[in-house]
């Protein structure tokens, strides 16, 4: 029986998942990216400095990651030496953006898969926020209008958390998280100019000054977000994990892991990073080599050749191509399927022993929830690794502010050469992000992006290997095949972004 799960809600963009279910088990899954804009087409021939602006519009959820990857790529192409303040401000802008994204992903995008909204009807307390929500839901349900209490209802059938106290607490934090994500973004905007789509990020640094009042303002906002992460987000995540322990065994992807590393701690993008880069296969990590990445298109809606390396990338849309089922290409590393994202970032760092804090947090939380670190390859593991990333990044950002030199330059002087090329790689909140720029006659000759959900949401490659999310769905047992809340939870754990994946 074939069942489409699309349009999938509470993700970025246009995703369908075509499942085949037999005897209550998903025996096949196809991830179908259903939106295409053609960034690589319209970037060609533009001024190179347009790139960190245009590519932010690939994704309004994680625009700063694109601005940073594009800036790194251009810095490499221009041979820029970035002043220490410039590199730190890049980190402060990008890091705060990660924090907002983790809160949004857990509360707004994922929590309603687990938390029972209707529990609020039983609320007896006097918290004004909760009383307001309760009265609103009551009035909505009594109103007789179609679709009351939207967007929180209707919802898919399935088991939700039974404990009223946990549900009500999580709902309060859902509303609070909406306020806290704004604070993280305000912090980003102090140096980025605004959010979404920062205008102050450039190759070579940031146009905003490193002023003591701005730094103090940033610290105060991040401190508030950090407090929320520790006092609300992590306890709520643990409560969800304890209510749904089976999700440590559901949704494992069946390939390797890839991370490009996050936030250089020295002057160049290649300096030692807060989270180390690496490709992880069978417990062994090897250094990342961009030349080992190829993109297949047999099942993608392009007539351009399959299996090209990033620097040779081509894009010829072919919307009615026979046999193709997605606008997403199928990138592979050494020809193999990999998962990218928070689990990959944490595992790649953990296996290399790069950041002692990452190792300590993995051990701590694995101990609390009673799992082996290998179980990180699961629905709950991805959520846990987002929380671990949030803790590590929040502490790092506060330390990083102390390393700024107020009054010193924040920007290198930019001179765009007539020709050149460069790769720029970072970790978006959703995983490994790569930009490549080639300049000829002062214009962009080629621009390529390989984006986190391009990896995770990819269709089959030419050899028929499924993408990471497809592989994680296949084999899942589902109670209600028409709805499949189990599959939805798997998809949400990857936090897919289709605008990114196709671009």
């Amino acid at each position, binding site marked *: 029986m074939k069942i489409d799960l699309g349009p999938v809600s509470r993700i970025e963009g246009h995703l369908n998942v075509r499942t085949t279910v037999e005897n209550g088990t998903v025996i096949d899954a196809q991830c179908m990216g259903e939106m295409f804009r053609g960034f690589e087409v319209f970037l060609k021939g533009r001024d190179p400095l347009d790139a960190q602006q245009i590519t932010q*519009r690939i994704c309004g959820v994680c*625009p700063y990651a694109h601005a940073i990857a594009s800036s790194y790529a251009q810095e490499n192409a221009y041979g820029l030496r970035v002043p220490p303040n410039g590199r730190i401000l890049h980190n402060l802008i990008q890091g705060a953006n990660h924090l907002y994204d983790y809160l949004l992903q857990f509360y707004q995008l994922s929590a309603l898969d687990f938390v029972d909204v209707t529990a609020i009807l039983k609320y007896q307390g006097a918290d004004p926020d909760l009383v307001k929500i309760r009265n609103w839901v009551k009035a909505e349900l009594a109103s007789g209008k179609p679709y009351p209490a*939207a967007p929180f209802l*209707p919802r898919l059938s399935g088991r939700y958390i039974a404990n009223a106290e946990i549900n009500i607490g999580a709902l309060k934090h859902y509303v609070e998280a909406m306020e806290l994500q704004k604070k993280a973004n305000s912090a980003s905007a102090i140096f980025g100019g605004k959010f979404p789509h920062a205008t102050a990020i450039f190759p070579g640094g940031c146009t905003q000054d490193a002023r003591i009042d701005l730094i103090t303002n940033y610290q105060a906002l991040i401190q508030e977000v950090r407090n929320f992460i520790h006092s609300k987000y992590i306890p709520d995540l643990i409560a969800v994990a304890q209510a749904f322990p089976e999700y440590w065994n559901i949704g494992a992807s069946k390939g390797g892991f890839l991370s490009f590393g996050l936030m250089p701690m020295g002057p160049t993008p290649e300096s030692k990073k807060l989270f180390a880069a690496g490709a992880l296969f069978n417990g062994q990590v090897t250094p990342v080599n961009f030349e080992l990445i190829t993109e297949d298109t047999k099942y993608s809606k392009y007539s351009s050749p399959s299996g090209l390396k990033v620097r040779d990338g081509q894009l010829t849309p072919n919307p009615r191509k026979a046999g193709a089922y997605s606008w997403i290409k199928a990138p592979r590393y050494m020809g193999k399927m990999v998962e990218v994202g928070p689990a990959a970032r944490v595992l790649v760092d953990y296996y290399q022993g790069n950041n002692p804090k990452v190792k300590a947090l993995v051990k701590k939380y694995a101990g609390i929830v009673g799992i082996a670190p290998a179980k990180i390859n699961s629905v709950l593991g991805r959520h846990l690794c987002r929380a671990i990333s949030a803790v590590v990044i929040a502490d790092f950002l506060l330390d990083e502010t102390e390393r700024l030199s107020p009054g010193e330059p924040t920007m290198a002087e930019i001179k765009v050469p007539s020709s050149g090329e460069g790769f720029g790689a970072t970790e978006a909140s959703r995983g490994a992000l790569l930009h490549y720029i080639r300049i000829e006659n002062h214009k962009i000759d080629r621009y390529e992006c390989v984006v986190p959900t391009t990896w995770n949401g990819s269709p089959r490659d030419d050899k028929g290997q499924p993408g990471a999310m497809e592989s994680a769905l296949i084999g899942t047992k589902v109670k209600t095949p028409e709805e499949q809340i189990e599959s939805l939870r798997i998809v949400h754990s990857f936090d897919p972004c289709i605008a990114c994946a196709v671009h």
Partner: protein
Amino acid sequence: MLDRRNFLKLAAALSTAFGISNLPAPVQAALKKINPATLPKIIYLQGMSCTGCSISLLQANAPSPAALITEYSQLAFHADLSATSGKQSLNLINAFISGKAGEYILALEGSIPDQMPEACVIGDKPLAKYLEEAARTMTAAVAVGTCACDGGIPAAEGNPTGAIGLREFYKRRNIDKLVVNIRGCSVHPDWVWHTIVHLVKVGLPELTDGGSPKLFYAKKVHEQCPRYHDFQQEIFARNLGEKGCLFKLGCLGPDTYADCPTRWWNSGQNWCVDANAPCIGCASPNFARQKRIPFYRLAEAATQKI
């Protein structure tokens, strides 16, 4: 003498004083249909978008985003927030769009691929089909962001999908329907929420020729810029990161209608020029449209002598 400018002013004043009879037919129809006693339901659809406008709507300050979607409007469907998913959400969308679930305002984020319908599909059909059907049932539409208004980034030169905005989409189909344009890449949350609140509480706000509320889009960024004095004194930044008027670095404030200089972004935290970043004209209908007009003019600025 009553010149054209004053005539228009007078006409606007008269139409306010004597009701809505002088306004264009679709606007009148829209105004009559909106019932201030009931909150409008919003069906929020995404075209070729990056979700940046939706994320921006969550950055609303006061009222808070949670209040805006429950007390000031009703977000019947939004793909990023709705608990529902898949078939269930398609049924919900279709119930409204077919006219069976009552009045609603359509909000569209993102552009429409008019020459490649397969480039934006929701469930079992292209976005374009929903928009055509909604034109028969919706009260009015709000085009959220430069993409939905004018095509935006997907319509940049080279535009492989034939991306266009909602007004153009309806115009090509001879559909006469009120579309309020809220430009910005992304939009400022106030621009959208205050327009919706305005629609609900007092009716349609006064619009510019481009179909945007004058509340936010009546003046150019340049006219309101705190560095306008620098411009007059010819104090120009020559390199990125410098103070002074950013015009010579390529600032598009003189060409862009928006109130960023007085409104600021992210709960009043900052805005582009205060971060020494030139305005790139993201609220302009021509945003990023031509390859030969880059966002920045660094080489020119550095070589020019004052």
